């Protein structure tokens, strides 16, 4: 197996186009597991860790964070907790310290697992994935359109993920993840919430409860319409619960070895109810 190590983004895209049999590898925390279990036998590995551009983040005009695909979770936690609190909370739940030092948001998107923990907060924040190819240049895909099936995404064979563009939080964000132990666990269900008081909107993201990560648009609209954005008075009786039920209704979970469909739905309702309560309290305190 060849090990290809481009040192620039340009070179990486060129190799990607030339070697369709080369599997990109960033932190390797998914790729190495696949190789060890003999689930994949790629002709080559395309190592992206020498591509400096991927390992940087910056703030764009308009206040969006451009997060390089190769920035590991540990840095998201350490450097972006204020701008991207939802993503940082999710990053904190990923694996163990070792995994958080290696694993990247780009890799999470590359794997596109329904259980990927970065996905719900990116959905809730309304992020875009920036992908690129040598032949066609760059395109930006809203994260809600990015996932196409279980562990599948919109990437063409010659494309790589360059970055993810995440609006800086304008209001409180929450991320909650249920697992059957208290650390190092793949989520049984996960929920992300972002309040956007600037545009009086609500963002959501559901993990591990459908073939792909997904939003709960109906729940978002319902909540955005019911919240007292102007006076920020306490949540009316029953609103959080009604929101939770709508979030649960948006899921399409299955029974598997990690949990049952019924429990996944139930837990989403609880998580969404709690998350909105905390987020709204935060917003009121901030006022």
């Amino acid at each position: 197996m060849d090990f290809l190590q481009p040192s620039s983004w340009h070179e990486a895209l060129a190799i990607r186009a030339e070697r369709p049999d080369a599997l990109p590898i960033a932190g390797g925390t998914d790729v190495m597991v696949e190789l060890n279990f003999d689930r994949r036998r790629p002709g080559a590995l395309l190592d992206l860790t020498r591509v400096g551009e991927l390992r940087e983040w910056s703030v764009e005009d308009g206040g969006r964070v451009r997060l390089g695909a190769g920035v590991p979770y540990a840095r998201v936690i350490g450097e972006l907790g204020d701008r991207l609190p939802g993503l940082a909370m999710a990053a904190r739940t990923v694996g163990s310290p070792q995994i958080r030092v290696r694993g990247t948001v780009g890799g999470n998107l590359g794997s596109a697992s329904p259980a990927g923990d970065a996905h719900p907060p990116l959905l809730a924040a309304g992020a875009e994935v920036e992908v690129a190819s040598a032949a066609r240049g760059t395109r930006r895909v809203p994260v809600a359109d990015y996932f196409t099936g279980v562990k599948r995404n919109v990437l063409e064979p010659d494309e790589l993920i360059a970055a993810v563009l995440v609006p800086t939080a304008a209001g409180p964000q929450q991320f909650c993840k249920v697992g059957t132990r208290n650390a190092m666990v793949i989520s049984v269900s996960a929920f992300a919430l972002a309040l956007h008081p600037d545009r009086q909107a609500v963002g959501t993201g559901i993990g591990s409860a459908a073939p792909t990560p997904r939003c709960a648009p109906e729940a978002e609209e319902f909540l955005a319409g019911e919240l007292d954005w102007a006076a920020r008075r306490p949540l009316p009786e029953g609103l959080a619960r009604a929101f939770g039920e709508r979030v649960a209704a948006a899921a399409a979970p299955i029974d598997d070895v990690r949990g049952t469909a019924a429990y996944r739905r139930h837990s989403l309702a609880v998580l969404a109810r709690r998350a909105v309560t905390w987020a709204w309290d935060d917003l009121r305190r901030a006022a």
Partner: protein
Amino acid sequence: MTTTQTGARTAGRIGDNAQRPDGTLKVTGEFAYASDLWHDDMVWGVTLRSPHPHARIRRIDVAEALAVPGVSAVLTADDVPGENAYGLEHADQPVLAADVVRYEGEPVALVAADHPETARRAAARIRVDYEVLPALTDPRRALDDDAPEVHPGGNLVRHLRVRRGDPAPTAPVVVSLDFEVGMQDQAFLGPESGLAVPAEDGGVDLYVATQWLHVDQRQVCLALGMPPGKVRLTLAGVGGAFGGREDLSVHVHACLLALRTGRPVKMSYGREESFHGHVHRHPATMTYEFGAERDGTLVYARADVLLDGGAYASSTAAVVGNAGLLGLGPYRIPSVAVDAYGVFTHNPPCGAMRGFGCVQAAFAHEALMDELAAAVGVSPVEIRQRNGMREGDRTTTGQVIDSAAPVAELLERVAAMPLPPPLETSDLRNLPGAVGNTTHGEGVRRGVGYAVTYKNVGFSEGFDDYSTARVRLQVVAGEAVATVHTAAAEVGQGLVTVQQQIARTELGVERVVVVPADTTVGSAGSTSASRQTYVTGGAVKAACEAVRTAVLQRAAVALGGPVAGLALDGDKVVGAGGEVLAGLADLLGDDAVEETVEWRHRPTHAVDPETGQGDAHVQFAFSAHRAVVDVDVELGLVKVVALDTAQDVGRALNPDAVVGQIQGGSAQGMGLALMEEVVVADGHVRNPSFTDYLLPTILDMPPMRVEVLEYADPHAPYGVRGVGEPPTISSGPAVAAAVRVACGRPLRRVPIRPEHVTGT
């Protein structure tokens, strides 16, 4: 001769926290585990396993696999020269499946190649033509008339009846329940590994991680058709065992490949193969009933225990023995009716695991004790104290307990320990769900639960349980050195340390070398049943005493006085007052004094086949746990806040090691209560990896308070009592009880899953 007083006694004797001789190597990652075995010019062996729980093998075509460059051998059942059968109690398990496969993961063929990856790819090219057969996967159907037979002769492995007292008892208070326990894995960190080296005499030397070298040797010889002299085993570095290495794994396979290729052959499982490559803890289905007086005093107990043995016998019969003979817990019960069954199914084979039949039963009898407490209106501690065994009581098999049985005291001690502070929500890591950020205190209820157990130590029911130790004392470069040689498997528990401590104590020397365990010395029995400190410790002590007697007799002759009053200390012969009479260097010169002793504990006896009555056990060990849990009752997530325990260990030969056993065992029991389960559906293992077979992490395991009691057993060497298993038995039921208290649901199955707590 001048006399001088000796200084301080030798450090590192029994009762001291002597350091492990392999401790530094293990902590720095330099210890050679079996998976590190290496030999120049070795080849790698891999196993092809059945994908079906039950199928007939019509044909195996190995031609394509053999044609892969780098492959040196492909073997099937036809290549087994001896008997194609092995097993701990019954040789019913083929080395390689011949005509039928009986569980998913059963070995069918072997490949040797110059690289493990080559061997794996070649194995994938072996064409096995299977005719899939209906599988029996529900143990409750195993004894039905129309159930498919897993082996000719029926699906019953063992039925044990225990009957005592009134055959038709009645009582004013009756409580009953059904309980189910899932399949737990030993999950030792070092997967199965071994290296077989063909020898010039036509035999083979096998280096392997195991629990009992001699019982392995017997089975390997049978399969290879060779005498014991030609099959020599040496213990390789063992990364945990917990019962999962009692049955053979790579042993015969590696030897077959080595003898065929004439090359050293290494085999080393990955984690997924390990899940298929060893037996698990038996899943259990149980029905229990207690009858009691209005004050809670037990009048009778009934129990029906069904253990799923899977496809082969392994140690199912002995596990049934334990579940039947000990499965009512450490209580005084005048009338008893227990039926314990072990059955064959096409599920993965089950066998030995820490706690051995008592673990499953304890979940049922402890849950029922809490029911009884509630029914008569006393506390869980009181009900157990009221009924708890005491020294001199008879067990349910009529055996008199002839050393300490401090059930009431153990409970009193755990109940008296300070409770943890109330829920503290400022750090998510203290909450159920931890950094998953699932609660900030909402829905969290605290529960406290208690459990107590007793467990037999050593082999029971008349088994000839012994160990062999060879001890040599000689002077090397002016310093006395004791060498201890046994075949006892150090699996991480610290037996090597204890052997050194015993030799220092008995021989008064500082330097003790424990040489590698192998089959050139007699059997030490298994590293299981909490028995090695007792039995091999007993053998080492006896061998040391024999050496000491010989040395002191020499000293008496040399000194021209009586033996009486002489002792060994600090490399010297000393008199009754501690005065130095002779140095060992002068006394022994170049001579070595060596003694080999085969040592047995008191005999045990088979039980009556109709009533299960008899003196089946040599010793009982008792422990109690108190668990404190915070449960998010809306999400069903659990945080164990405290898991405190008291245990009688007779005598703590190495107090740190004792506490280590108690902590590890408690974590393992908690794991079964909350998360550890091999999920088997239609005979297929659904989660053969640590991604989905969840073990407790540091955030799941609370700090523990451990109180160690030392009521010496007058019948045991130094008064020791087995330590390793009781914590695994009483911790889980205490955790389960605490979760029940917190959420108010009956929870009649473990592991408790979130959806059981929430009822969704």
